[in-house]
């Protein structure tokens, strides 16, 4: 069974195959008829046990463009919010005959448990589990970087990417670190020490507390959303101080390398980790990330569900 639970589940060759497949998928999205018959008769369940707009609609659009039947199962008002166990929910989905379950869940490891527990028979695609991983986001980020800086081909060897902000609580960061390194890029984490996980240095990344010093050295900057409740948990003293040290504004944008890109997985806190000026600047590829997300998710669904047929 093919599952995408963590970037660790795919090797470099397969990661590049996903990126290459996404190029073809993007052409479909750009064409006059935005639909392929590939997954006709297949059922994709979007199990979203946590609020998420963009990832859910991105997976939904991807599945529909491949002609799959899509069932959305969201937390609000569902039995999940009433304390039904993951196992019971999964078995309900199984009864629907899902060929793939796309799961977003607030608990780290939920996607892996769903797959390991054999509670469902289809492919499990992790769409973000707690503070663990978000592999499809990392793939769309790598796709975006490769498109802008490597001509949409090959790997990312020689590139240097900064990930800035709340690394500790970020599933996006964990998946990005694994994938960027797998594709040959160097990664530098920039954050206050309180938001860097313990032993992160053992992940084979550079760690810096000096955003200004790093900016001129990197080809891409991935800004992470900072959640306001982190302040009450004492990770930093005030939004103003956080912003002044680790936010990106026009002044900092001027320090970046020519041709470098600014990314953000969304949703952005404009004015906190990123100013409107930067978000809407020429170097910003935030809007493009969203459209690339659909192409990447089409590629993932195609390769993982079709892969099952072959196996």
């Amino acid at each position: 069974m093919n599952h995408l639970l963590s970037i660790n589940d795919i090797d470099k060759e397969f990661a590049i195959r996903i990126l290459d497949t996404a190029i073809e998928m993007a052409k479909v999205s750009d064409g006059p008829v935005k639909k392929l018959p590939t997954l006709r008769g297949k059922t994709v369940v979007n199990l979203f046990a946590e609020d998420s707009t963009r990832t859910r609609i991105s997976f939904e659009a991807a599945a529909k463009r491949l002609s799959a039947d899509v069932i959305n199962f969201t937390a609000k008002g569902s039995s999940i919010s009433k304390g039904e166990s993951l196992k019971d929910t999964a078995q309900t989905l199984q009864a629907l005959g899902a060929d793939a379950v796309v799961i977003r869940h607030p608990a780290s490891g939920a996607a892996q448990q769903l797959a390991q527990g054999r509670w469902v028979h289809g492919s499990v695609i992790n769409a973000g589990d707690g503070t663990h991983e978000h592999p499809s986001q990392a793939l769309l980020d790598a796709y975006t970087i490769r498109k802008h800086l490597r001509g949409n081909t090959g790997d990312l060897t020689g590139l240097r990417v900064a990930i800035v902000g709340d690394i500790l609580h970020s599933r996006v960061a964990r998946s990005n670190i694994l994938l960027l390194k797998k594709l040959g890029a160097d990664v530098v984490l920039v954050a206050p020490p309180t938001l860097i996980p313990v032993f992160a240095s053992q992940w084979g990344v550079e760690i810096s507390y000096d955003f200004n010093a790093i900016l001129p050295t990197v080809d891409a900057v991935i800004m992470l959303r900072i959640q306001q409740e982190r302040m009450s948990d004492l990770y930093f003293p005030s939004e103003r101080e956080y912003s002044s040290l680790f936010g990106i504004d026009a002044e900092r944008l001027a320090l970046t390398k020519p041709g470098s890109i600014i990314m953000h997985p969304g949703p952005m806190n404009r004015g906190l980790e990123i100013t409107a000026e930067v978000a809407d600047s020429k170097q910003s590829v935030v809007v493009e990330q969203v459209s690339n997300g659909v192409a990447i998710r089409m590629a993932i669904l195609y390769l993982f569900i079709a892969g099952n047929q072959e196996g």
Partner: protein
Amino acid sequence: MSEHFLIQGGVVSDGARVDIEIKAGVIAALGVDIAAPGAEVLDATSMVVLPGFVDLHTHLREPGRENSETIATGSLAAARGGYVAVSAMANTLPVADSAAIVEQVAAIGKAVGLVDVFPIGAVTKGLEGRELSDLASMAHSKASVRVFSDDGNCVSDPLVMRRALEYVKQFDGVIAQHAQDPRLTEGSQMNEGLTSSTLGLKGWPSVAEESIIARDILLANLVGARLHICHVTTRGGVEIIRWAKSQGMKVSAEVTPHHLILTDESAHSYDPIYKVNPPLRTADDVLAVQEALIDGTIDILATDHAPHPVESKECEWQSAAFGMVGLETAFPILFTTLIKSGRMSWMRAVEVMSTTPAAIAGYTHHGRKIAVGEPAHLAIVDPAAMWEVDRATLASKSKNTPFHGMKLSGSVVATFFNGHLTHKVGN
């Protein structure tokens, strides 16, 4: 059940081969080639006969959580594990913070009759950490409580801890501390380290344990009280206890079987069967607690037997309950990790399983040497036996063992409690 036994050909902890006759609840005769007409004979050739085991840290769940365990099922699990005495932790519903509750637990234990059930009293009312329980009332009750613990919770307020340590001196009580700074472990899921960082599970740092151990050692020393540290898991904790003992301070400590063998890397499975509090630590910590148990820095093995129903473990890691059952696997784990290789002697094994826990808790009827006239509390173990743990065969009402499917060496083949055969393999 016959009450007259002859255990033939077993070896005791000093290596001597003896026959042991049990009659009327005591060891009636001891020697080579004893004749005991009419006795039921147990062939103990190639077995080791040890004083019955004493557990200082057992969650029996009754009253209030009988869906996890009862005093009856927990007593049977204890007997299967070679135990003759268990210490029932106070975090029941209602909490064991009054004479009435501890007397009830002791009475049910006595009625079950498979092991001595010694209730542990809560240090604070409702385990809330604010007001002291009626400690002396529990001490002077029919349950004669001497060990007090808020286990599950830490007595984190330093003033409350100081007063408790001081107060129980009047009846030679001891406070057993669950060392966990609550602020440093809010929402914690597993050991804070490389694995927690990678898995995105909130960390439980070693220092949250070590800082409380250090503080309480100093407080106990200040007031001249005895202190017992529950389930030590870290190298740092071991070093602090070693220092305190070198200064002659009155501190004792325990380690659980699971912390002798498992590490935090097991969490890579996201299987909550490995979720326990305090958490599984690193391989280096495992080595440190093993060495400490061998050299006496850690005094005893204690199970922290913590039964939970299936639904509390078959769920997301962060929603799952903390804890593992341990009574039936404790000795095999000790044997497999330390005794088999010769790192721990049989003499030391007797101390950590029986003599010292009985001494810490003041269970004078237990932990005694194998001698004529002594109560017949015995565990007979087979060092050559291999056992693949099967959770379905556990006597405990709950099956949350992390050792399911693991092959362990050494098994408990029979247990005698007050001369009664409470467990025999094959029965």
